[in-house]
């Protein structure tokens, strides 16, 4: 065969550009610089917000007190008797609470951004695969078995919730890999398992007595009321450890999210391995948060959406920004929850649903208009 057969087209001028390009020296801007600045600004805002939310509450504690307390606990120093009360409020109550709200929101939001990208659907959340009903079932089982003796934030309950959530995710991923991780398969399996575990939890509630029932129901209200440094440490470490791993794969995640499975494969991405690995990571993030804080909906859905509006869809920037936007969202919701009818505290899961549902509805309606 020959590559030189003249079919009559050789020697034609190259395709004329039908649309006038801008001047020859079109500025090849680097949009990364602007986005990096935006990211740094959001990080600074987050630190300020955590400090400020620590001052909000009935007992008067100022920003200076917070700064002083943090300085003492980090670098040592003596707590004077007149500062003792403020120091205790900051370090034992408000700071762990603010940090747990922030890290839990951050973990859920990053998890949501990863799931939305991998499943190529902006309406999925970290709980799409049935993580939260499974965790609720795990927690309810332990509460029932101990006859309500285990408090809703005790380690056996947390362990039961975590084990159930991870087991369910493993089952979903295992079943879906038989169908080469097709997105529709994952979504449908998630729906099926959500229904199943909601029925199982309802069955447990049917068997439970009054006190146990109350403990089960209280677990499902997502809250950070029992925040302590132990919880902050676990959730914070998991969230901060996941972030660099996710950023490393952000480029491949971009290929899958924006080009689709087939084109991503032709771009050199091992799509099946990427999907299993990153979904597993996203599910671990969500499971840990659910186990410690209960079911907090909408943050994993709305956090990435806010981030996408602010910084664009590129996952190299979207993932860290989702971390911050989700953290800020949950921190703000918790601060509202503990001030709106103070001294009573509204669980953060309830507050965030009031904010999240309208945003989510708006998101669906806007999509319909665009389609």
């Amino acid at each position, binding site marked *: 065969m020959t590559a030189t057969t003249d079919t009559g087209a050789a020697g*034609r001028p190259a395709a004329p550009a039908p649309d006038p390009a801008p001047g020859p020296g079109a500025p090849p801007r680097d949009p990364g610089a602007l986005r990096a600045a935006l990211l740094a600004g959001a990080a600074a805002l987050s630190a300020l917000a955590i400090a400020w939310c620590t001052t909000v509450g009935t007992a008067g504690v100022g920003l200076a007190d917070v700064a002083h307390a943090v300085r003492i606990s980090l670098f040592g120093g003596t707590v004077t008797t007149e500062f003792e009360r403020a120091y205790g409020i900051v370090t034992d109550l408000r700071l762990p609470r603010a940090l747990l709200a922030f890290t839990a929101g951050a973990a859920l939001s990053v998890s949501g951004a990863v799931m939305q990208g991998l499943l190529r659907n902006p309406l999925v959340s970290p709980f799409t695969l049935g993580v939260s009903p499974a965790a609720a079932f795990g927690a309810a089982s332990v509460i029932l078995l101990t006859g309500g003796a285990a408090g809703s934030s005790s380690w056996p309950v947390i362990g039961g919730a975590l084990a159930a959530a991870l087991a369910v995710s493993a089952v979903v991923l295992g079943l879906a890999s038989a169908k080469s991780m097709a997105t529709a398969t994952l979504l449908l399996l998630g729906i099926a398992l959500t229904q199943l575990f909601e029925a199982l939890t309802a069955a447990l509630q049917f068997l439970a007595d009054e006190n146990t029932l109350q403990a089960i129901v209280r677990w499902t209200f997502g809250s950070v009321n029992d925040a302590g440094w132990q919880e902050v440490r676990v959730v914070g470490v998991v969230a901060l450890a996941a972030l660099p791993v996710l950023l490393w794969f952000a480029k491949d995640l971009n290929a899958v999210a924006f080009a689709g499975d087939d084109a991503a494969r032709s771009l050199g991405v091992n799509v099946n391995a990427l999907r299993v690995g990153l979904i597993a990571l996203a599910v671990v993030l969500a499971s840990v948060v659910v186990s410690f804080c209960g079911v907090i909906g909408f943050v994993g859905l709305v956090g990435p959406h806010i981030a996408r509006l602010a910084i664009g869809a590129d996952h190299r920037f979207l993932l860290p920004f989702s971390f911050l936007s989700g953290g800020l969202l949950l921190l703000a919701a918790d601060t509202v929850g503990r001030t709106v009818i103070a001294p009573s505290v509204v669980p953060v899961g309830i507050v965030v649903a009031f904010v999240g549902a309208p945003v989510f509805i708006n998101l669906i309606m806007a999509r319909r208009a665009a389609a």
Partner: protein
Amino acid sequence: MSGLDVTGVRFGYRRRPVLEGVDLSVAQGAFCALLGPNGSGKSTLTKVIARILKPAAGTVSFGGRDLLRMPRREHAKVVSYVPQSSAAPFELTVREAVMLGRTPHTGLRPSARDRSVVEAAIDRLGLGAFAVRRLSELSGGQAQRVLIARALAQEPRVLLLDEPTSALDLRYQIETLQIVRSVTREEGVTALIAIHDLDHAAHFCDQAVLLSGGRIVADGPPARAFDAAVLSDVYGLQVRVEHRGGGVEVRPAALDGASGE
């Protein structure tokens, strides 16, 4: 041979065979058309070469290197693929979409070279005025150009196109084929296009490969590969092949008004 070599490739979905032992050679820098009726295996063959589908048997090599055994990322530096269409569920600018073509090359963040390759691909496809537009604002023809720009930004040695012109109007069809042809002429890229229009294939391509039922039934320069009897049999429609100058045209006999049976 230093071009693209496909030998003994078989592929099937479950028990339905789609490719039944395909052997094909395309010289380096040649523009080859894959022709045949719907379901003949054109798209499947491009997807096997693009490593989207894994063949049950057979080898694919380029310049003597086994394309099916090298790491995926290395393969993506040699072969790029233009799908028929692509719907992104998220808002992306044209420049970001073309940058995806750098995926196998770039590290954590795009280098200056990545950016200049992307700008060159955008200019080549005449998308300069749209670089910061969102994909959803583009017409079908412009969106198809973005996919081609993405494939060129990948700096491939082999460019695969899966029916890129099927949904385009005449002007975009011709311009797409002109662009691909100029890429083969100017950069020595080997191009393989799955396409329906026999006359376009005859006009722009160096080699025409006719598939039927997963087998190759004709292969060669279009003027030689297009045989009235073979084409009539493959498409189940009587056609006449007319040689005009250096070119060749295929015309359904039913349109002649002389075929009343």
